């Protein structure tokens, strides 16, 4: 028999094998998940969860699919959080801190409590990337926030009402589109294709009999 632990899902006690993740523990206990479950691999942010171990003051935040259960764990999932997502036209926005003042002015009300960073399920320095956004340093904001899965726990803890993941999303798009250096070889290749540079080559290749294709494939040169 596996070792069992007691967990309290929304306050109700269930006995589950100790090696399960929180998500698996919920299913083991009888929940057919619809909300609060997405990629099950730590990339989508659907399964933000808060928990507290009985007797412990500290409140923890995690992704349910990436966290093992513990004995006496009190669990509440956060399957949806009302983040504010402002709409904008990426082709027309200004690429300086003005855009932040315009779309997400609440970031300037940050009181520096660092609750966002402390609660980040990915262990990111959230308050720092908000500081970068305030200053219009979008490249740094993009870099610092890159691993964000937009689960929204940071925002749920923020006294200033900031929607951190959406601020970072805007910064990354600005960085990707406007600030990071343009890729010359990519633009050249797109133009070459438009000009039909490879058309004959490709069509010739496609018309070859399969046996010849196999020869070509099996003896093709592979870049080191």
């Amino acid at each position, binding site marked *: 028999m596996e070792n069992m632990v007691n967990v309290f899902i929304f306050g109700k006690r269930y006995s589950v094998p100790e090696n399960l993740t929180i998500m698996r523990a919920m*299913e083991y206990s009888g929940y057919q998940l*619809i909300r609060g479950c997405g990629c*099950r691999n730590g*990339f989508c942010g659907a399964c933000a969860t808060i928990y507290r171990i009985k007797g412990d003051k500290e409140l923890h935040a995690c992704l349910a699919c990436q966290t093992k259960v513990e004995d006496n764990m009190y669990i509440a999932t956060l399957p949806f959080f009302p983040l504010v997502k402002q709409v904008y036209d990426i082709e027309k926005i200004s690429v300086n801190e003005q855009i932040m003042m315009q779309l997400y002015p609440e970031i300037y009300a940050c009181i520096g409590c660092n609750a966002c960073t402390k609660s980040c399920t990915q262990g990111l320095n959230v308050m720092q990337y908000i500081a970068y956004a305030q200053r219009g340093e979008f490249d740094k904001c993009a870099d610092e926030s890159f691993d964000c899965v937009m689960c929204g726990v940071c925002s749920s803890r923020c006294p200033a009402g900031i929607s951190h993941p959406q601020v970072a999303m805007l910064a990354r798009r600005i960085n990707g589109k406007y600030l990071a*250096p343009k890729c010359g070889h990519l*633009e050249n290749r797109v133009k070459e294709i438009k000009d039909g540079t490879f058309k004959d080559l490709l069509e010739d290749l496609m018309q070859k009999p399969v046996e010849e*294709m196999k020869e070509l*494939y099996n003896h*093709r040169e592979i870049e080191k």
Partner: protein
Amino acid sequence: MYSEKFSESLKLVEQARDKNIALEPARMTAEQKDTLLATYHPDYKTDEFEVLKIGANKGEKVPMELAAMLEAKSRISANDVDLTKPDIDCDVLIIGGGGAGCSAAIEADEAGAKAVIVTKLRIGDANTMMAEGGIQAADKENDSPAIHFLDAFGGGHFAAKKELLYKLVNNAPEAILWLNELGVEFDKDKDGNMITTHGGGTSRKRMHAAKDYSGAEIMRTLRDEVLNRKIPVIDFTAAIELILDENGNAAGAVLMNMETKDLLVAKAKTVIIATGGAGRMHYQGFPTSNHYGATADGLVLGYRVGAKLLYADTLQYHPTGAAFPEQIFGALVTEKVRSLGAKLVNKNGEVFMHPLETRDVAAASIIRECGDRQNGVDTGNGLGVWLDTPMIEKIGGEGTIEKRIPAMMRMFGKYGIDIRKEPILVYPTLHYQNGGLDINENGETTNVKNLFVAGEAVGGIHGRNRLMGNSLLDIIVFGRNAGTNAAQRSKEVNVGKLTLSHIDKFLKERNEAGIDSTEVSPKLLPNYVHNAKEQ
């Protein structure tokens, strides 16, 4: 954290590391690969397949779990809804909110059509979000779309539909540029050159990446753009039956609210199936790297109205799913780990294959190593082989792992395994549906008019195996393609009277074929309730 029982094998791996780094293992010959696949690849286990008794692919074999869904009953009968009063009326109905669905929506919107996305979970809940390693495009000097074509065609066993593959490789650079212009951040050097690597079976380094969050970076950007364009997204709502019009053309879908089970009728001039893959079907009992909703819904929806499948008997088992610890059993360990230099090593510390063979070959080789060759490591939850990640730091320098594959470092780090210092255990995991609905160059099914398909639900772009980085590419290229063409088509379509008569017709076929299963489909979600394992 590795317990005592792994220490002997770990020591052997560590001792052989320098020697193994220097080793350049031979690639297999075509004959060796064929024999290996026929003997060990799951696609060749005939007793795991079933011959379809009804439908457009009658007489062909598919995995038995898929056959059960393709031949199952509808969740509804025709008189459960009132087709004369549609709740939604649009030009392009897009079923699925992943990478393909969002790309299609953006292009349909761009073309001036009224697009609507319906998705059974949230927008962005998709395999796209979980793609780690990268996206291919032949945009470097030493590369060309023709070389890309040959790599993909050969890697797919010369079975791809050539006109689809042509479109894939020829539109690849433009797809990357489109994403970059939307704000997707690619790994670049200070001059803007793309930092590219190999994938299994590539002959040029054309794998573009955004660390090992490549799919997530693409997906969240596409999602943001869909929201900026105010394209309606109806979430937690599954399409459970397509609607045809009296002329037999696709004209909408019956939708079901996943929570309340309420039904809605969506009428549309064109429909795009972008429902993704099938990993959660757990074919042959394999674990999966896939998203919670990957249950082959689109194949079922299409098949029931008569659309044809292509290569539905071929699945991709990603060679490196996590085999330990059990909490992440089956989770994807990106191929990029091998692109960056890590080799596959057996329990004796021996490199047993070239790390960058194509995925089907690599998976079969690991299954052989753990099976007949008995060189697998007992994980306590099955077998696995080592993927020697510390090699990456030795080859690329300290800090390479944190910079290039932070998600992998985090995933194992949560369980006390520092992949910079310790190798990880891997075993094949169900990863990708090579087959799917048969389409033409315009993205439209070959036999149901106004029904388009994009993304993993398509069959034939890659043939019978897919190269790393060609799926993120195909969801963009064929998602956009379907969006543009469906929008175009919607301008000429006059929808006739809506009907669900195909449901009865299908039931009749079932009866005549002697199928009496009580199951209903599409599956929508796997059932893990009261199970200690995901199956």
